[in-house]
Each structure stands twice: as structure tokens, then as C-alpha cells.
């Protein structure tokens, strides 16, 4: 018996529209799920309080140090107000220290939290047995992953946003320009995206949240310590190979592009060139020594770009791991032999 195909009342939506609809739908659900209740805002409040305490501590240590210096110069009776006034340089140092502390804290926060949040984004759907319901709806796989990445990182973004008022304190002390702050936040956001994408990719690849989280942390550790060790080894080896010649030791800079610690050091040390010490040493060891005229925005933009590219590549690759039925394949619609246009 032959059969006709049933007329199909389907709308073939454009891919862009499907992507947009998917991002909105999945992100709405993710945010409802993650931000419900008081927990999210309680943690954000505690985070800001702790960050405030840290900033206060840094301020107090440096202020006391500046005050002691003034007393050393002018005697025990030196007026604190006068002591502060005489050392505008000390205020600048406080501002720069707060800036450095906040940048380091935000970086550590991102490195600690982002993988944990994203490494369960897809695997938890499998563990909860909700994935099958999701993949049989006409959503865009890429849109789903983008929404999951944003939804998972929303918490980190909230905490980063919560740090902005504290960060603005640095302008009261001076020594830090607004574009330095923009640089710092751009770098932190790029690291959050890249590291979050690592967790997301592993979540789709491994399928078990706990294992994906552990592997994510191992990879983050390797990116920081491993890249530093490899670069240092290549740097030191290149010194030996120069046979005491005039050629300066060198190691490929790109090894460190995915090392957020080095990117932070670059931002701090190029922002405050007069603060040498650790900066000079680190720049030399890491091959970033660019002398007194260290160019700004040379290393960290490459590092940020590397994190963004890594995030994009891993997110796109993850689309191929969500479900075997959602992998890329050439579209080759086959229409039933009986379903010719002439059919009623």
C-alpha cells in the first residue's frame, strides 16, 4: 500500500532567530534557577563585605607605614594630617595597592568559581535526565551553550559588578587612571569567559559534573603554573644555549598568553612603571622586560584575546558533544517518493 505524506505545517525559522530565541529561553530558565531565593544575594553581600575588609586592611597597613615614615622624618609629634599631606606619593601607593589587590582578588575569584559553575552546566542536565527533553526541542545547540555559559557565569559577573564601587575608591587616592580600571575589568571578564568555557567544554565532554570540575581545576592549574614553568625552563635553557654570547635569553611569549597571573602583572607593572622590584624581576624572568620604556597594552590584550578565542573555540566544539543527534551534518532532506507536489 502506498502512502502520501501528511502536509507539514512547519515554519522554517532562520538560524539567527533560532539562536536568539534559544539564548533567551535557556538564559531565562538558568537565571530563574540560579538566582532564586536569597542565597545568591547573601553570598554577594558577604563577598563585598570581605572584599571591603581586605581593602580596608591594605589601606590601614600602607597608611600606618606612611605615618611611621612621617614620624621618622618629623618626629613623634608629627600631625597625621600633615604627614598625609606631605606624602601624596604615599596616597598614590595606597590607591595602587588597592587596585592591585582588587585585580588579584577578582582574578583568583574567577579562577576558583568559574570552572565550578560551568563544569556542571551540561552534565547536570544529563545527571538530572532533562537533557533528552531539551535536545528534542527545536533549539539551537550553540544558543543553548552560549546561554548556559552566560547563565553559569552570571554569578561571577554579579560578584565582579559588586566590586565596582570598591574599585572606584582607588580614584580617591590617585595613582590609578580610569583606563587602568577598564583594562583590569576587561582582563578579568576575558579570563572568566575563557576559563568558564573550559568548564563548559569539559561538562559536555565528560558528562559527570564532579569529574569535569576536578579536570577543569587541573587545567587551570596547568595554565598558570605549567605555562610559567615551561616558559621559565625555555628561558633558562635559551641562556645556556647562547653560550655566553650577546644574544639575550628568550622564550616564546605565547606560552604565557593563557596565564592570567602574568596578564595581571603586565597590567599592574605597565600601569605603575615606577614601582619596580617584583615587577622588574618578573618581567625579566617572564621575558617581558621591555626596559624603562615598557610599552603599555602589549601583552595583556594578546592574553585577553587568547582567552576569548579559546572560549569561542571550546564553545563551538562543545556543540558537537552535546548530543550525537545534534552534530553537524550536511543537510540532505529526503522527501518521500509519494509526496510529490502534485499530491493533495
Amino acid at each position: 500500500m502506498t502512502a502520501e505524506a501528511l502536509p507539514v505545517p512547519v515554519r522554517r525559522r532562520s538560524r539567527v532567530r533560532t539562536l536568539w530565541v534559544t539564548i533567551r529561553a535557556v538564559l531565562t530558565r538558568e537565571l530563574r534557577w540560579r538566582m532564586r531565593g536569597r542565597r545568591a544575594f547573601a553570598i554577594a553581600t558577604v563577598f563585598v563585605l570581605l572584599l571591603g575588609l581586605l581593602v580596608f586592611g591594605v589601606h590601614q597597613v600602607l597608611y600606618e607605614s606612611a605615618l611611621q615614615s612621617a614620624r621618622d622624618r618629623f618626629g613623634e609629634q608629627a600631625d597625621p594630617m600633615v604627614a598625609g599631606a606631605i606624602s601624596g606619593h604615599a596616597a598614590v601607593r595606597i590607591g595602587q595597592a588597592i587596585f592591585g589587590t582588587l585585580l588579584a582578588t577578582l582574578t583568583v575569584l574567577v579562577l576558583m568559581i568559574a570552572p565550578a559553575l560551568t563544569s556542571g552546566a551540561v552534565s547536570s542536565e544529563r545527571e538530572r535526565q532533562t537533557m533528552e527533553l531539551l535536545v528534542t526541542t527545536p533549539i539551537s545547540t550553540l544558543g543553548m551553550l552560549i546561554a548556559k555559559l552566560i547563565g553559569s557565569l552570571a554569578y561571577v559577573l554579579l560578584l565582579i559588578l559588586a566590586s565596582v564601587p570598591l574599585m572606584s575608591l582607588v580614584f580617591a587616592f590617585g595613582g590609578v587612571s580610569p583606563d587602568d580600571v577598564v583594562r583590569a575589568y576587561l582582563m578579568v571578564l576575558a579570563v572568566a569567559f575563557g576559563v568558564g568555557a573550559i568548564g563548559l567544554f569539559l561538562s559536555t565532554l565528560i558528562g559527570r559534573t564532579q569529574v569535569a570540575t576536578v579536570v577543569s581545576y587541573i587545567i587551570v592549574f596547568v595554565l598558570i603554573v605549567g605555562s610559567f614553568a615551561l616558559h621559565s625552563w625555555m628561558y633558562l635553557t635559551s641562556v645556556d644555549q647562547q653560550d655566553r654570547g650577546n644574544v639575550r635569553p628568550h622564550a616564546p611569549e605565547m606560552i604565557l598568553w593563557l596565564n592570567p597571573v602574568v596578564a595581571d602583572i603586565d597590567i599592574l607593572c605597565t600601569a605603575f612603571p615606577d614601582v619596580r622590584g617584583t615587577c622588574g624581576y618578573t618581567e625579566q624572568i617572564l621575558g617581558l622586560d621591555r626596559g624603562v620604556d615598557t610599552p603599555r597594552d602589549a601583552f595583556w590584550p594578546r592574553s585577553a584575546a587568547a582567552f576569548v578565542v579559546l572560549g569561542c573555540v571550546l564553545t563551538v566544539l562543545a556543540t558537537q558533544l552535546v548530543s550525537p543527534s545534534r552534530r553537524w551534518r550536511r543537510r540532505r532532506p529526503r522527501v518521500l517518493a509519494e509526496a510529490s507536489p502534485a499530491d493533495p
Partner: protein
Amino acid sequence: MTAALRTRGLVKRYGSFEAVSGVDLEIGSAQIFGLVGPNGAGKTTTIRMLATSLTPTEGEAHICGVDVVHEPDVVRQVIGYMPDTFGVYDDIRVWEYLDFYAHCHGLGPAARRRVITDLLDLVDLTAKRDAYVQSLSRGMQQRLCLAHALVHDPQVLLLDEPASGLDPRARAELRELLRELRAMGKTIVISSHILPELEELCTGVAIIDRGRVLASGPIEAIEARFRRGSVMRAKVVGDGAAARAAAAFLTAEPEVVSVEVLADDRLEIGVSTDDEGTSALLFRTMSAGHRIASFAPVASDLEELFLQITAPTGDGSSDEDRSTIEGPTS
């Protein structure tokens, strides 16, 4: 006739294991079609391939004329799928659950609000609109999952064991709901172990075992082709002696294969004839003076058919030897 769903030579292999071995189905529109088979027969794998959750290794499948393998995105717009096992999101309310899936199907805010209200009414969960999904009972979650499959008004519903875990009342309500959906023009493919319910509900079935369709078509057509007898249970009026006398009479009848007197003096009679022969046997028994209070099959027709068709023949060639009733179900 119009075919809402058709498969040809559908195969799914996992390494060397063949879960589905060339399933051919043709299901007309506005039908309720049952997939029947023992555990591990390949029912769920078949449904998952039709739902675009799995990609077939070989063969083709079309739903509403759209290729399942090559246009899964289009197929996902015309099917509603309810898997055998499913989970729910934590910390999400019932209306938000439906809102999410409706949003995934591209419905606008106004349409979503309307659909959610209508579906909650349809599956009788209006009172639970603001409850958290994880707080619902298993039966309520089943109904909610069915509602999720309907948010985009699909042409074809693929329901894998939708009645599992439901109490008798909920199962009866589900049957009514499915009939209502059929009346609305939906084609429903349903797999279930509860065969009497399928028999009552379905316009056609496919009996699947070890990845093959052993029989497919309207239940009456399968019965006419495969029926080799049945087991009847009779209650004889009187004491044990009356039961034994009736048993002795029945044993001598040509249609009777076996007679057993049960502990409660009821008789279990194996007959190798159709309904007409069984009726004649009952008439002769009562004409001979044996008073029969009840006379009914032990199992439903579908159960009986299922047991007969899937029973091993002993020569290991049962699947190959059985012919399949081809053809649509409407």
C-alpha cells in the same frame, strides 16, 4: 490514506550489538499506535530515533513527510516527545517549566501564557500552577511532562511508557486524555507494558522483540493471522465433583488442549480455536448439563497474542519464520 509516520529498515547498532534490526512501520494520521514488546525489545530505541534523540545507524524515517535523519530541526517542530525516564529542574515552578519549553519552541509571551493555562487545565494541574516541579507526585510529573510535549501543538506524539508509575485512576485519566488528543487529530505512538490498556486504546500495534517487528497492524488483523488458541478460565456451579465432571467432559472435546482443576475448583482450559470455536465449546458443555457461572480468557487478547508471538519456538528461528502483517493501521 495519509501516513503521519513511516520507517523503512530502521537500524540502530551499538558496536556489534543491534538494538533495532530493520523496523518498518507505517502509521496513519489521527491514530493511536502501540509499540509492544518485552524489556530490551527495542521499543525505546525506536521511539528515541523517531524523536531525533538518537541517530539511526541505517534506514530512514519520515514524520509528516519530513526526514528524521536529515531534517531533525523540522521534525522537532511537529513531534511532542515524552521519554520513559525524565527528570525535572530544581527550583522551578510548574508554569515556569511549561513556559521554558514553550519559549524553546519560539512562542511569544502572550501565546505562552495562553498555552500554559490551557495545558494545565488539560492535564488537571491548574491548582499546582505555582508549585515547585520537584514537589509534585510522580503521577503529576508524568502529566506535566505530557503537557510539555504539547506546548507547540504537535502533529505527532511519541510517548514512551507514559503510564508507568501512575495509579489506576491516573491511568484511566491518561487514556481519556489520549482519546481526546486523537479526536483533535493527533497521531500518537505509545509504548507500554500494560497491554490490556493498549488494547483498549490503540487502533493498531506493532509487536517488537529483539529489535524486529514480529507483527504490525490492527489488533484484529494480527489476531486473525497469529491466534493459535487461548487459555480460558471457567467457574463451575457446584462442588469439586461438578468441576471434575466438567473437566472430564472438556478433556474429550477436540478443541481442548489441556484442562486443569485449580485449587478453588475453577477450571483452566487451554483451547486451540478462535472465538467462534470457543463459543461452540461453551454451548456444548452447558448443553451437556454442566453449569458454568463464568467463562473468560485468562489474559487479554493482546497479551495472549504477545505471549504467543514472542514465545521462543525452540529451534532458534522464531523471528525469521514469522511473517509480519504489513500495512497501515487505519
